[in-house]
């Protein structure tokens, strides 16, 4: 456990600087909204979802619109339903308590890094947790630094740090390519994601693109099976009974 835990933590370091920089931006925003650092820390530890926390802090004007906040968080985090489902092979055969504990520490970044490692036969629950603890630590460090001291980086975009997330996910994406027939599902997902991002707010584009692309892949597999079954029915003449 401890070796994979450490490997998982190290594997998430490439994205850690960006996570901390954006954390510090959230910290400043929270301080402006008169959120105490203790409250911010509680939010970090219990919600642990970057974009959702940004939305919460932006809506943080008394009297707090609790219902709108929770609904907003749900909509933004809807993608975790898919991400959670995709972790099934990783948690296969694990007891419920490990699933219950492990899933709290799942963020986009350590999920992607772990799934990429799993593809290479390495990722495990310990690896995922190590990544989660690494991200949680830098997230807390970044947000609190921003809250108490001001931004680590005033405008992360100027240094291309917003693109760091895109770049890390792009680098990991390469490892998921399996065969030429992946073109269609991937292009489908890309088109759906871009179209959705223009039409719907929040993170719906991840949900729509993810489901749409995976459905295309499933359709391809069913169609291929159907064709194979049809070919087997046709008397070929080369069979053992011919």
């Amino acid at each position, binding site marked *: 456990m401890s070796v994979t835990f450490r490997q998982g933590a190290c594997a998430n370091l490439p994205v850690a600087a960006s996570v901390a920089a954006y954390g510090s931006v959230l910290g400043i925003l929270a301080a402006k909204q008169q959120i105490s650092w203790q*409250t911010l820390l509680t939010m970090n530890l219990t919600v642990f979802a970057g974009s959702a926390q940004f939305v919460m802090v932006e809506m943080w004007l008394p009297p*707090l619109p609790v219902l709108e906040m929770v609904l907003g968080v749900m909509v933004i985090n809807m993608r975790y339903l898919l991400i959670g489902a995709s972790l099934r092979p990783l948690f296969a055969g694990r007891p419920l308590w490990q699933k219950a504990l492990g899933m709290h520490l799942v963020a986009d970044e350590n999920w992607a890094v772990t799934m990429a490692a799993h593809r290479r036969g390495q990722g495990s629950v310990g690896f995922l947790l190590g990544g989660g603890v690494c991200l949680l630590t830098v997230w807390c460090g970044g947000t609190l630094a921003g809250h108490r001291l001001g931004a680590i980086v005033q405008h992360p975009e100027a240094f291309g740090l917003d693109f760091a997330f895109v770049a890390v996910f792009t680098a990991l994406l390469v*490892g998921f390519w399996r065969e030429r027939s992946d073109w269609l599902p991937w292009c489908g997902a890309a088109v759906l994601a871009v179209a959705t991002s223009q039409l719907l707010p929040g993170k719906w584009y991840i949900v729509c693109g993810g489901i749409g692309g995976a459905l295309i892949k499933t359709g391809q597999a069913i169609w291929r099976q159907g064709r194979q079954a049809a070919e087997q029915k046709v008397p070929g003449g080369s069979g053992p009974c011919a």
Partner: protein
Amino acid sequence: MNLQDHNDLMLLAIAGAALATYALRIGGLLLADRLPHTGAFKTFLEALPGTILISIVMPGIMAAGIWGWIAAAMTALLARKTGNTFVAMLAGVAVVALSRFLTV
């Protein structure tokens, strides 16, 4: 509104957000556990990581314009050639940062 009411609402908002987020995280896994472990649903689940990742990156690449495409292509190429996520990421970030530095 007094301070006590504000604190109560604060607690409620954080607890609600935390519960909603956790329910989605664990719900996805437990739901998948109950669905078939073979056939079409298995294919669907196995395709998800790739299609989710491409959906995450696409709007970001588009938003960064032509330099976003160049940076993404370079990142993918380096990831493929070196197998080093960190180096690949740095290259992509450097391209976007440089393009912004030059155009501002």
